[in-house]
């Protein structure tokens, strides 16, 4: 079974530029999560999708971050414009329908904003 795929693995941009991350979850997993992990901290949930609907986006900075999951499969997370404090690893995870009892994580995208 293929795992959660993410791209790119690394991205370096300058502040005020925009960036997009892509995630393809495990086949059949209805729930998809985007996390932000700042160096030295645990992952923080940004947004949770159930199929193509948003379940929780309470911690997503909506003035600059957006995410979509068209057709309920893969997803993109966008930052526009980026700030220095957005430097972090962005992790995508998925879980099967029926709950998030076990989440499967992708390798993450490491973003550096200069």
């Amino acid at each position, binding site marked *: 079974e293929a795992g959660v795929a993410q791209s790119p693995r690394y991205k370096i941009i300058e502040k005020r530029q925009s960036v997009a991350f892509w995630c393809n979850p495990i086949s059949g997993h209805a729930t998809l999560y985007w996390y932000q992990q700042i160096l030295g901290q645990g992952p923080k949930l940004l947004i949770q999708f159930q199929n193509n609907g948003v379940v929780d986006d309470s911690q997503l900075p909506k003035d600059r971050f957006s995410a979509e999951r068209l057709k309920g499969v893969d997803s993109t997370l966008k930052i526009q414009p980026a700030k220095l404090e957005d430097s972090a690893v962005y992790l995508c995870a998925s879980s099967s329908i029926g709950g998030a009892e076990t989440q499967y*994580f992708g390798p993450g995208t490491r973003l550096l904003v200069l």
Partner: protein
Amino acid sequence: SQQGEEDPQALSIQEGENATMNCSYKTSINNLQWYRQNSGRGLVHLILIRSNEREKHSGRLRVTLDTSKKSSSLLITASRAADTASYFCATDAKGSSYKLIFGSGTRLLVRP
């Protein structure tokens, strides 16, 4: 906001020794999970313990849960150099729509 807080923040042990990490949380939970993160990689699920369970084993891992104290511990027995990683507890709070809240992690170093 952080729900789980791990203790200690960092732990260094010799190969073959046991490693114990603790996690405290604030609200009632459905379950508590432990994840491992190797440097520069994604998280890997280790074990899940439900709120009505007190202890669970998986290979060299032993997890305990004390809901009255809102705390959990992860014991890794006979540690190996390959166990070097960061370990996070994550809680699935009641009424949270399966939203996991992660702690800040314990960084474990196992010296060969």
